[in-house]
């Protein structure tokens, strides 16, 4: 796609935004009725697609610039190539973000004209000035970053990296700005003793932006986008690996898949805690949100989320396992016995500690920190070690245990009202369904993954990686990780949106349409899967167009095997 075509697309998106706004201002415009899906689902589909593209184009540049910097610092051309290839895909998907963004505004205005106009009016300066300016600025910097790649190398590389940092800065501000109206719909400004409508009338734009869930949503999305970007980079690598015919190409894409997965998993480790922070703030805003999420209408959505996160952790650790297999000398790597002991004890001890000292009580850290640091500290004095293979296998056992704890519900009923004794956990075991147990499960998954990466790093320093010789199944693992991450994003996006219940803006602006109810998980799963497939199809097409078509011939020097020290 040429520059003028991309610019035209961006222009269309902006026209859609302003044209749509003008359309909505026309008096007496009746809402459009979407056949088959209904209006709400139509908005959901377009919004979710837009968020997926936007998530990638905001998340990918973060690790792209880090990768470029690593390449510059280590003088390793693979990092630079990875960064450039991901940027190529980002540029195509940037156009798709603009296109779906424009479509989103059109659909929103056609289906909910009064509400959309109301929201735009409340955030007029954001929608009419700040967001378009940031969007134009980001477009300009992104294309400049991409097109100066080859020109700004050598002693100009630092300048190019600085441009990448600027791109990320604008991207992050754009995310934060658009999160304002989004989070406002969930947690509009309020004050004790004043009616929300009255308070809103006197609230400044900053009051509206800086609402309860704004910063937690920013953090959650920022980390989520990096995770997502990392896994999509893994997907790109998997496609290219599967399509490679030369050993050196396989070696490179094997390496790229590993790096993408490491970025994805690295950010994923923080995601459960960011999600917890967001949920905590939402519950703090209005305690009735909590039971709606965890015990009532959306409880099974969270069960599904638990299943997905569990699968993602299993798959990412399995990828490390497969990666270890291609390291020569891995059998020599050993680790202190304290590490597997802590792994096994962690769910039990942490559940007990968090029950007695619920988060965020700092006393819980007095018990947990020494325990988590024990392998590093006590391991120096206790000479008993076990093989890396044993540690990883115990880790897998604990990932399954962690998944089991996370997944075990209080009862097999969609709502508390329908819960009967035959479907409920015995009262003595109800702790398995409470937050301390769920948090300890999440922490176990994170701890095991960190230990596995430490083992991997030791294996790398002590052995030799044979890039390109990884088990072919690993490519399916990378594809699975990307697919599952996107699916989970769709699921949690639906949850965040549904938390508004029968309101457009929670407790402030009721949705009087017949569609303002909580849909079933099965219904949602169909649409989430459909959205994921469409997104996947577009991304796959973008990868084929940008990378397969311009198959590099100049990168012939990255053959395998590569000495471990050069990772």
């Amino acid at each position: 796609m040429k520059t003028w075509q991309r610019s035209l697309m961006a222009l269309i998106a902006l026209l859609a935004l302003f044209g749509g706004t003008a359309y909505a201002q026309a008096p007496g415009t009746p809402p459009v009725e979407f056949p088959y899906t209904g209006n709400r689902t139509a908005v959901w589909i377009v919004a979710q697609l837009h968020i997926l593209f936007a998530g990638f184009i905001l998340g990918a540049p973060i690790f792209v610039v880090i990768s470029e910097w690593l390449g510059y610092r280590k003088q390793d051309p693979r990092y630079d190539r990875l960064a450039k290839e991901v940027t190529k895909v980002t540029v195509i998907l940037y156009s798709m973000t603009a296109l779906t963004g424009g479509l989103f505004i059109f659909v929103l205005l056609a289906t909910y004209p009064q509400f959309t106009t109301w929201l735009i009016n409340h955030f007029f300066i954001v929608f009419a000035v700040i967001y378009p300016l940031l969007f134009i600025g980001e477009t300009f910097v992104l294309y400049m970053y991409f097109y100066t790649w080859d020109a700004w190398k050598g002693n100009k590389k630092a300048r190019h990296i600085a441009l990448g940092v600027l791109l990320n800065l604008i991207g992050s501000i754009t995310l934060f700005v658009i999160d304002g109206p989004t989070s406002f719909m969930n947690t509009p400004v309020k004050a004790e003793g004043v009616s929300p409508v009255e308070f809103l009338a006197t609230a400044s734009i900053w009051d509206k932006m800086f609402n309860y869930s704004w910063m937690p949503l920013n953090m959650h999305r920022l980390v989520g986008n990096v995770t997502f970007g990392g896994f999509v980079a893994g997907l790109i690598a998997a496609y290219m690996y599967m399509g490679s015919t030369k050993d050196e190409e396989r070696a490179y894409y094997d390496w790229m898949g590993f790096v993408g997965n490491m970025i994805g998993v690295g950010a994923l480790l923080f995601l459960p805690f960011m999600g917890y922070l967001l949920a905590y703030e939402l519950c703090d805003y209005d305690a009735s949100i909590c039971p709606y999420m965890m015990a009532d209408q959306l409880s099974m959505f969270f069960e599904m989320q638990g299943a997905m996160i569990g699968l993602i952790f299993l798959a990412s650790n399995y990828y490390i396992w497969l990666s270890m297999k291609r390291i020569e000398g891995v059998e020599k790597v050993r680790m202190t016995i304290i590490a597997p002991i802590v792994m096994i004890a962690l769910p039990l001890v942490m559940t007990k500690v968090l029950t007695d000292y619920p988060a965020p009580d700092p006393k819980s850290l007095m018990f947990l920190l020494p325990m988590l640091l024990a392998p590093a500290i006590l391991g120096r004095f206790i000479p008993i070690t076990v093989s890396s293979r044993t540690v990883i296998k115990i880790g897998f056992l604990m990932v399954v245990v962690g998944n089991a704890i996370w997944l075990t519900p209080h009862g097999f009923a969609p709502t508390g009202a329908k819960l009967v004794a035959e479907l409920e956990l015995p009262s003595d075991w109800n702790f398995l369904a409470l937050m301390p147990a769920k948090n300890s499960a999440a922490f176990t998954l994170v701890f095991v993954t960190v230990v596995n990466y430490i083992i991997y790093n030791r294996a790398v320093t002590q052995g030799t990686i044979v890039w390109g010789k990884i088990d072919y199944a690993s490519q399916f693992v990378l594809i699975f990780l990307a697919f599952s991450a996107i699916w989970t994003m769709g699921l949690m996006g639906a949850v965040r949106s549904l938390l508004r219940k029968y309101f457009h803006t929670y407790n402030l602006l009721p949705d009087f349409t017949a569609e303002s109810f909580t849909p079933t998980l099965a219904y949602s799963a169909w649409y989430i899967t459909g959205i994921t497939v469409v997104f996947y199809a577009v991304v796959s097409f973008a990868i084929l167009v940008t990378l397969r078509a311009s198959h590099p011939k100049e990168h012939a020097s990255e053959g395998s095997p590569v000495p471990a020290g050069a990772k």
Partner: protein
Amino acid sequence: MGKAIVKIIVGLVIGAGLWVATMTFDFPPVFRWLFFGYAVLGTVVFLILDAPTMKVMSGGKALVSLLVFYAILCTVFISGASLWPQYDPEDEKGKIVKILKGKPNILDPWKADEVIARTKELDLKAKELTERIKALGATQAPAGQDAGAAAAVPASASGGDVLKIGEEQWQLQECYNCHKLKGEGGKKRGPELDNIGTLLPQEEIAKKILDPKSYKAEGFDAEYEKGKMPDKYKDLMELKDVQALASWLSTFKNTSVNTPKPIKMK
């Protein structure tokens, strides 16, 4: 192959152990299956760990395997989500209609749709009455009656109706999510209310609903400080509904239940 069989046997033994353990601790059957499922998952994981290396695929074969893999993923995710108990939206739809009935739509203050529908309805009634009057003869119409005057004066609801409305509000506002009553609902987020009628008069219960900071339940200091009870019902509920709910709650005077003592704060 031998190792795989050993793993399957170990998995089955663990599964059976979990089944027996859950039976011993009186877990319902559905949980026994769930725990057995965890053992199966663990077995599958350990079988995959030592599975033989997959052969490299290329060209059409790789493409087909990829498409099949996607089809499997879609099927597994959709069927996995469908296997969980499903919430019935019909339960909520009726509630939402009741809650929103009569609520002002600030986006459409003139209620254009409602006004048009009401106008049509009244127009039809007027036509019908005109025809009836014509049939009876205009002279027989009662003297002094103002045809345009509104005749409907809402009859005051009887005591039984008020209690019924109060109970309905308990359900609609989902108070049961935090408060236990008649042994149902509540997750210790809020106090159990079976004896609230003894401790607070109806007007004070209404006051607490409208202004959650007006009273603090004894032993619920942290919840009070954090403002756990949402300060939203004065905006979301009609005053008559709040009074009906308070009236219904004031009938609960079960002294055998330890409802915490309300402490006046305002």
